C-alpha cells in the first residue's frame, strides 16, 4: 500500500526538481495524503512484533466445548463456511495426537495425551513451502513472520496445498457463500476458486486486538513476539516442555504445543 504512495512521491519529487520549485512537492504531498493507503496508521493501537508466534497450552483445554468455542470464534469472524464434504474449508480444527504429531514420538504415550484432541491451524512457518511454491506471490510472508494470502491474486492452482506439509490450506471448490449462515461484514467473504487459510488474525492485530482464537481460549492459547524474551510466548516456552509439528522437515513452525 505504502509503495504506491512512495512511488508517487518519488515521481512528484523528480517533477518538482524539473520545475525547480518546492511548491510542487507540497502539492504532491497533499494529493498523496488522499491516496488509498495514505491513512495507514502504523502507530496507534496496532500490535507489532518481530516474529509472531503462538503457544497452545493443551493442558488447559479439556472439553469439546473449549475447542468448539475457539473454532467458532475464528470461523465466525472470518466467514469460514461449514461445508459438510471432503471439499470442506477449515482454518482451525482438532484431531488426535497421532494425526497431529505424525512423527510418532513415543509408542507408549499416556492414554490421556494420546486420546486428547489437539488444535490444528496454519503454522506460519519461518521457512514456508507454500510461499516458496506460489507462482504469483498470492501467498507471501510478512516481515513479522505471518504468512498471508491475497485472494484477489490467487489463480487457484493449488500448488501451495501440495506444498504445505501440514494440511493447513483449504480451496474454495465452489462458491462458499451459500454455506455461510451469518456473514461478518467486517471481514471479506471469499469467492470460488481461491485458496484460504488462517491469517494469524493479521487484520485484528492491525487494530490492536489479539487473535480471535486466543481471546476465546481463556488463556490456553498464548500469542506474542518470539524475538522478545519477555513476551508471554517466550516465557511459556522457557518454563514448559513444548513440541512442534513435523520438526524434521525444516519449516520452523510458529505454533508451539505444551503437552
Amino acid at each position, binding site marked *: 500500500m505504502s509503495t504506491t504512495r512512495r512511488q508517487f512521491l518519488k515521481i512528484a519529487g523528480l517533477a518538482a526538481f524539473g520545475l525547480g520549485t518546492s511548491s510542487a512537492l507540497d502539492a504532491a504531498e497533499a494529493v498523496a495524503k488522499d491516496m488509498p493507503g495514505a491513512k495507514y496508521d502504523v502507530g496507534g493501537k496496532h500490535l507489532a512484533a518481530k516474529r509472531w508466534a503462538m503457544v497452545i497450552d493443551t493442558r488447559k483445554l479439556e472439553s469439546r466445548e473449549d475447542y468448539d468455542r475457539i473454532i467458532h470464534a475464528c470461523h465466525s469472524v472470518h466467514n469460514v463456511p461449514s461445508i459438510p464434504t471432503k471439499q470442506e474449508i477449515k482454518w482451525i480444527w482438532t484431531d488426535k495426537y497421532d494425526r497431529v504429531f505424525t512423527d510418532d514420538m513415543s509408542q507408549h504415550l499416556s492414554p490421556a495425551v494420546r486420546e486428547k484432541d489437539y488444535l490444528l491451524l496454519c503454522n506460519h512457518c519461518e521457512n514456508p513451502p507454500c510461499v*516458496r511454491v506460489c507462482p504469483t506471490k498470492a501467498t507471501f510472508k510478512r516481515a513479522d513472520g505471518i504468512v498471508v494470502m491475497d485472494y484477489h491474486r490467487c489463480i487457484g492452482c493449488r500448488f501451495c496445498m501440495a506444498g504445505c506439509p501440514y494440511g493447513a490450506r483449504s480451496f474454495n*471448490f465452489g462458491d462458499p457463500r451459500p454455506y455461510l449462515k451469518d456473514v461478518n461484514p467486517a471481514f471479506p467473504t471469499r469467492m470460488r476458486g481461491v485458496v484460504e487459510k488462517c491469517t494469524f488474525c493479521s487484520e485484528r492485530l492491525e487494530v490492536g486486538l489479539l487473535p480471535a482464537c486466543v481471546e476465546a481460549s481463556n488463556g490456553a492459547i498464548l500469542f506474542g513476539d518470539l524475538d522478545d524474551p519477555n513476551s508471554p510466548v517466550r516465557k511459556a516456552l522457557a518454563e514448559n516442555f513444548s513440541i512442534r509439528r513435523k520438526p524434521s522437515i525444516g519449516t520452523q513452525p510458529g505454533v508451539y504445543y505444551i503437552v
Partner: protein
Amino acid sequence: MIEKVLKGSPAFYIWLLFLGSIAGLGVFAYIFQLQYGLTITGMSRDVSWGLYISQFTYFVGVAASAVMLVLPAYFHHYKKFKKMIILGEFMAISAVLMCMLFIVTDMGQPQRMLNVILHPTPNSIMFYDMMVLMGYLFINALVGWVTLEAERHDVDPPKWIKFFIYLSVVWAFSIHTVTAFLYAGLPGRHYWLTAIMAARFLSSAFASGPAILLLLVMALRRLTGFDPGREAIQTLTKIITYAMAINVFFFLLEVFTAFYSGMPGHQHPLTFLFVGHDGHASWVVGWMWTAAVLAILSLCLLIPPQFRDNERVLPWALGILVIASWIDKGLGLLIGGFTPNPFETVTEYAPTFPEILVTVGVYAIGLMVLSVLWKIALDVKKEAGTF
C-alpha cells in the same frame, strides 16, 4: 502450407468432425465446471490435484519424447529417422498444447492466468514450467515449420535452424526435469520427495512417448501408406525398450529404499498404492497391479528380438507399455503423492464423470491438432517425393 488442410479426403473431415464432437462434449463439461467450480471434480481438501494435473504431467513426457528422434538424427547423423522426425516434432506441439489446456482446466481462477507473468516469481517451479513449456512450443513450431518448408522446396534447411534443433534437445530434457521438480521439492510428500523423480520421469517419457508415436505412425501407415522404414521402427523400438527397462529399474530402486530403510513415511504411499493403507484398500490397488504386470509383460515382449522385430507383436507390446506407464504416471503418481495425507490418514480420490469428460475433450483437441499438423506434413512429403 496451411492450405493443405483445405484439400483432404472426406474420411479426413469425418475424422475431424468426430474428434470435434468429442471435444465439444469436453467443452460442455468445462463450461459446467466454470459455472459451478472445481467442486464437480473428485478432488478434495486432502487430494487437491487430480486427473488434470496428472495428465499434464504425462503429456509433458510425451512432448519431451520427440528428442528420441531428434537426438540420434542430428547428434549421431542417424539418417533413417529423418523421415519421421517431423511427425515427432508435430506430436510434441500437440502434446504441449494439451499440457497447457490441462493446466488451465485445473485452475480455480483461469481468467487470472496472466498473474504468473504479471507477478513473475522465480522461486516457484511453476513459473519455470510455464516458461519452458512455452519455449518448447515455440522451438518445435519453428523447427518443424522451417524444415518442412525446406523439404517442400527441395532445398537444405537454413544453417541457423541447427542452433534451434540442438537447443530443442536440451530443452526437451529441461521441460520434463522442471515438471519433476514441481513434485520433487515438496517437503512432507514422501512419494514425491525423491532425487530420482526427474530421472524416472525422463525414462518413462522416453519409453511411452515414442511408443505412442510408433503406434500412431503404424496406424498412419495403414491409412495412408506412409512408411517410416522398417529399420527406423526397429531402432526406435530398441530405444523404447531400453527406456522402459530403465524406468522399471528406477521404480524398483524406490521400492528398495522405502522398504529396506523401513521408514514408514517412505513405505506408506507404496503400500497404499499396492495393498492399501491401514486395512483400507482403494480402487487404485487393482490398477497399480495391472500396471506392474503390464510393465513386465511389455518388457517380455520387447527384449527378445524375435518378438520385438515381429510387426504383428509389436503394436501389442507398445500398447501394453503405454497403458502401464499411463497408470504409473497418470494415476499412481498423483494419488500416491496425496495419500496418505499430511495427517497420515486416507482420503479417497476418484475422478468424476465431468472431470473425465473434460479430460477426454482435451485429448480430442490434442488429436485434432495432431491430425491437422500430420496431414500438412504428409501432403508436403507427397509433393516433395519424400513420402
